[in-house]
């Protein structure tokens, strides 16, 4: 069997295990919708003037923000956590001792996370359009899809890489949340920052979260143009490369105690 086929086969088993854990499946799928409802209730869903005589519902901006959050959660957070747990349980060591190529295994975990992320974004967009009247992308759809896939891949790579500094599963939630939550708050995901002050602006520009959020929101709704945010995507790509290099170099198959 080819190594790609092995990876695809592995995805099937990963997915089977997820589907058999109903609590995990339910909250994974419901997660973005909860945020969409909360945003719309708390911040309102009025008409927003985007051009003379043209308004869209505010949910049009909530949907891509929550989509960005869903991707980061599904890829970065979930991969880092689940890899840490697999490492503690000895599952990673067992895979390492088997002939399954390492990259087939990692590819399977990453592709599964990316597929879940895409599914969440589709659910979120559909719910936003049907219930809150969000405007869905048409001419910018290719840019949106590209941004989505690039972002999912980059945050997956970073999720793998961060496990190198997570000593064991007990430390995983603290490390993962500690690295991602502050960034989510200063990167136009939860709160749109009109004119972020000095250092918040600098930190936001260095790390990948804001670039991803801006690129995703910008390609979800755009009055004209392709919606492609090339510069943001380049920064994201650089983080992705860094994630892969660090992940390959420092990945640990066994927990440190």
């Amino acid at each position, binding site marked *: 069997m080819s190594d790609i086929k092995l990876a695809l086969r592995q995805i099937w088993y990963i997915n089977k295990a997820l589907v058999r854990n109903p609590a995990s499946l339910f909250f994974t799928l419901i997660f973005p919708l909860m945020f969409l409802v909360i945003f719309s209730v708390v911040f309102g869903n009025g008409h927003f003037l985007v051009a003379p005589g043209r308004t869209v519902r505010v949910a049009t901006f909530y949907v891509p923000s929550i989509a960005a959050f869903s991707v980061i959660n599904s890829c970065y957070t979930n991969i880092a956590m689940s890899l840490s747990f697999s490492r503690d349980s000895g599952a990673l060591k067992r895979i390492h001792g*088997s002939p399954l190529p390492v990259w087939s295994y990692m590819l399977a975990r990453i592709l599964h996370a990316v597929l879940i992320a895409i599914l969440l974004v589709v659910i979120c967009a559909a719910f936003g359009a049907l219930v809150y009247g969000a405007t869905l992308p048409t001419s910018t759809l290719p840019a949106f899809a590209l941004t989505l896939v690039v972002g999912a891949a980059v945050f997956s790579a970073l999720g793998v890489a961060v496990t190198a500094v997570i000593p064991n599963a007990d430390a995983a939630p603290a490390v993962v949340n500690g690295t991602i939550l502050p960034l989510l708050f200063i990167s136009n995901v939860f709160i749109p920052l009109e004119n972020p002050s000095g250092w918040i602006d600098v930190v936001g520009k260095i790390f990948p979260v804001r670039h991803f959020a801006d690129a995703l929101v910008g390609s979800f709704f755009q009055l004209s143009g392709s919606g492609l945010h090339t510069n943001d995507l380049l920064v994201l790509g650089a983080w992705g490369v860094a994630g892969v290099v660090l992940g390959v170099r420092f990945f640990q198959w066994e927990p440190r105690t």
Partner: protein
Amino acid sequence: MAKLAGVAIEVDDLRKSYGSLEAVRGISFTVADGEVFALLGPNGAGKTTTVEILEGFRSRDGGRVSVLGFDPAKGERRLKEQMGIVLQTTGVDPYLTVAETVDMFRGYYPKPRPRDEVLGLVGLEDKSDSRVTKLSGGQRRRLDVAIALAGDPQVLFLDEPTTGFDPGARRAAWEVIKGLKSLGKTIFLTSHSMDEVQFLADRVVIIAAGKIAAQGTPETLAGRQQATTTIRFRIPASVTLPETLRPGARLDGDSIELETKDPTRALYELTSWAVQAAVSLEGISVTQPSLEDVYLDITKESAGAPA
């Protein structure tokens, strides 16, 4: 490194340190094809380090290692395809069924053993559709063995395979391992249980403080068959032993213990005297030191050595 005919595993002057701690200090041994080989030693003796170097999980600092002609440190897929590993920790997805788990691992190997055969070998046929979460501890351990057998390996590493088993489960696991031996598999076993080693192993190496303290078959280990034999019996207080038997005899409670290096002669002399003198030797027993006695002796001596 080509594989030598008849040799499955070769270790020559293996060394490994963790910081200033020398965990393995120059170990050499050979495991023949189809042999059940047991590595024994107290905790911290370097057992796990040695096994994990052979399995490819750890690097070594010095010496030569060959498993089926491969250097395990290189992590080559062709070697992994011929190796089965049962680790001390399990790490199986709890939500998959037994059959799915075995099939998942079978898929990683070029020539897997049929699933029903694998489950039959470990006695989990009836649990095929059970999820891993529903298995008992002993059944999970058998699933570990099943996973190690999925690829139909030439060499099987079993790291303390029956720790935590009840006596029935342990006996069943031993039968499984005996069965694997009859299939011609080479089995590398580590264990704390002397009974297990006695029952299963063709050859034993005892390591202590990172060095080989003794090696041999379970029967002959450390000159066990030449060691002192103890003959124990009771005779009425009014009777005294003949002169020839007095050296080596001592009173232990109301029993007499006779220690001898030549049990055949001692028993002959003792019983022919007893028959002639019409003395009944009550509760007579003849014991050799058990493997456990030998093991404790060897590891006690080595514990005194500088670490």
